[in-house]
């Protein structure tokens, strides 16, 4: 966005995008671990409500939702504990992502992180 050009006597409309980027502190976790889920924004005022949902990569049932967060100094960093007992976990796949809704703005998927949710196979 470098600016808007427009002639006189005409209503000139312009849009400035709100931007959001998602980051996570780890790329691999175990059940019971903590992971920091971070939302960085541009042109989003402080105090804007943020809701984070965690779901399997590629889609599927939402595993968990975190609400009650808000933007402060262009950032939300939420330390999330992976405690998924009783959550609707996928039957296959260990790769997960999170998404954020910031006001009306919906983010893309975050980079994925692996969670070992399958019981380990031990040799006899």
């Amino acid at each position: 966005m470098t600016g808007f050009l427009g002639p006189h006597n005409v209503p000139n409309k312009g849009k400035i995008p709100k931007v959001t980027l998602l980051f996570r502190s780890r790329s691999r976790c175990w059940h019971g671990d903590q992971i920091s889920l971070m939302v960085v924004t541009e042109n989003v005022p402080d105090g804007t409500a943020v809701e984070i949902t965690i779901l399997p990569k590629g889609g599927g049932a939402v595993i968990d939702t975190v609400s009650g967060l808000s933007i402060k100094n262009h950032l939300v960093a939420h330390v999330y504990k992976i405690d998924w007992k009783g959550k609707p976990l996928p039957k296959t796949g260990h790769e997960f992502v999170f998404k954020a809704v910031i006001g009306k703005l919906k983010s893309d998927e975050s980079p994925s992180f692996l969670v070992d949710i399958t019981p380990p196979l031990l040799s006899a």
Partner: protein
Amino acid sequence: MRHFRGDGWQKIEFLDRSKMLLPGHAATPVKFHDRVDAANFLRRLGAATGAMTGLRELLGETSDSGALALSTDGEVIDRLAAQLYARALEVVITARPKVSPPQARQEDEPPPKAKQQEEKADQDVEFVITDHLGDALPDLEWVLVYPDGKTKKTGKLGEDGKVSQTSVPPGSYQLLFKIVSAARWGDSRVQVDKEVKLLATAAGFDPGAPGKFEIFESSAVDKKPLARVDGKVNASRVLEGAWTPTKDAVKDLTTSTLVFQARMAASNAVSSPAEIVIKHSFELEDDKGPLADTTVVARFSDGHEATATSKGGKLDILVPLGQKLAWIDLPDHTGGHLTVEAEGDEAREYLLWESSDESPPPADDSDGDESDESDAEDESDEDEDGEADEDDEDDGADEGEDANA
């Protein structure tokens, strides 16, 4: 009668002799000394764009010949010259009436100053700015640049998102905002010990305005930045800074990607992650000295593989930070033995196996048990999580050895 445009402000009319005799026609026809004189006149006239077409049509009007299309330009001129010399056709040249250029002021128009004031009173300019979802962006500072490029007005966006001015000169207006955007790295990768530019668009700020950059590991944007860099808006209205990541500054990284945030006033912009790499230098030699230029394949602990050609026995490979050499191959030297001497590590010897072999031959491994392979995997995981211990360096060397085995 046909009209042609002559030199300057002249009108050239061709008239039938019969019309010249009409009462009231006071024009004096041009007299030609001979047929050649008339032909020269026509040639000069015919040189103008499209004029020959007009002369052909003139000949068609004054001739009963139906084969004009087949006549050359010279033949057309000859035949018209004959008519002019014979006075069957006359040509009259008169001065064109002067017409004032369009921009000239008419006598009944108001003087320029008054006109400008009138235009100013009639015009307004309006921008309506929202986010891409149609919502207002209150409190954003704007700068409205007038068509002259010099006059500027400033303000803050309200809830209606409108920027408007009345009684303004006509023309194209530019609306800029005092925000930074489009933060980007100057290079596609960040290299240890090499300066990288940090850039962000800052169209609404004047050249020289200060800004700040904060560089983070992409897994720790909520933590203390790795570095803070001062920036300045350049003549192209881009906030610009430079950072040279030292080995010391990045020694504790747990991932190999970085981001930065550009900050000016209350605004910020965040870059996309960039991979940080470090240069691994190799010296290749055999018992006769530096090895002739050859292809080298190096694979690192995260699976990253680099293929390059050595020059004069030397080779530089850029490797994502934190990765360790897992194995190295010289496809042009299969069947030979390779000794790897790394700084601060024991020399290791490998056999370069044929790529067609189903399995690589055993390496010169002191312990060679299977458990090392799982150790290597665990070590990789720990790197990712930032829990690597002090033994990592040694483990990494073992990992490389075991990957060969």
